[in-house]
């Protein structure tokens, strides 16, 4: 699952508020793709967050981002020679 697909998954799988255990039971083994060569699972990421319950999809999403963000930021395409970090020259072609 990519992070950008997570919200749709959360909304379709859960009714909020949802307990952390319920999230781990349903999505705990799902890998979060795209941010590292060795993806972590939702369970591994949430185990670093302290929340026992999530009141909304926003809160669950933010808990995951909060746990992975600083660990991954800039490690894949980081370029300290200016802004954009290569994003302008890394356009997608169809």
């Amino acid at each position, binding site marked *: 699952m*990519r*992070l*950008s697909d*997570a*919200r*749709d998954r959360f*909304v*379709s799988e859960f009714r909020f508020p949802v307990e952390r255990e319920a999230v781990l039971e349903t999505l705990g083994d799902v890998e979060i793709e*795209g*941010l590292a060569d060795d993806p972590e699972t939702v369970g591994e990421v949430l185990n670093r967050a302290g929340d026992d319950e999530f*009141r*909304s*999809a*926003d*809160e669950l*999403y*933010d808990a995951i*981002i*909060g746990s*992975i*963000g*600083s660990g*991954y*930021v*800039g*490690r*894949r*395409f*980081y*370029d300290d020679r200016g*802004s*954009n*970090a*290569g*994003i*302008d020259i*890394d*356009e*997608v072609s169809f």
Partner: protein
Amino acid sequence: MAENIVVSGVPGVGASKVSEFARRELGEEYTLVNVGDIMLQEALEHGLADSRDELIGLRLRDQRALQRRAGEQIARKSDSGPLLINTHLVVETPLGFVPGLNEAMLSDIDPSALVVVDASTATIRERRERSERSYDPFGKSIEFHKQLQNAAAFAYSLQSGVPVYHLRNEERIEETGDRLVTIADTLSELSGQI
């Protein structure tokens, strides 16, 4: 044919929750996409930001680059079926208000409708105060933000030739969500007749 619907509202009005309710009611046919989530993922992958708060403080050229990437991702997702696309038509940043969509992004998204979720300024302020999400300290100009959003909605409508729907969200999220479901069903029926 995919009937992509852009759902927008100023922060705190409840557009995300309305979109989430409608997504559940519409079932697996629709996929919910949050433009901010895609931009944040792109920002993480490119080392530009590691949180939503940092995203909003990025340089404008970086934000525009992320918007382009988000548009491209949405275009690819759209190949698999219709999307409910939750975004902000106007974004308030420390540098001022900026467009939430640009021409390339609008072209990539190719919406069939723009839905503006609205409520009174007092209601929005109250919801912000009750929300679990912290809102930007500079986000005090709710009325002006709403005016810009409405103007932007029609400007995007002129650009893309699609209708704008106005959904009042004063009371229950479920009622507003049901009206969004009706819009999606109507668009789907109309699409089948073409």
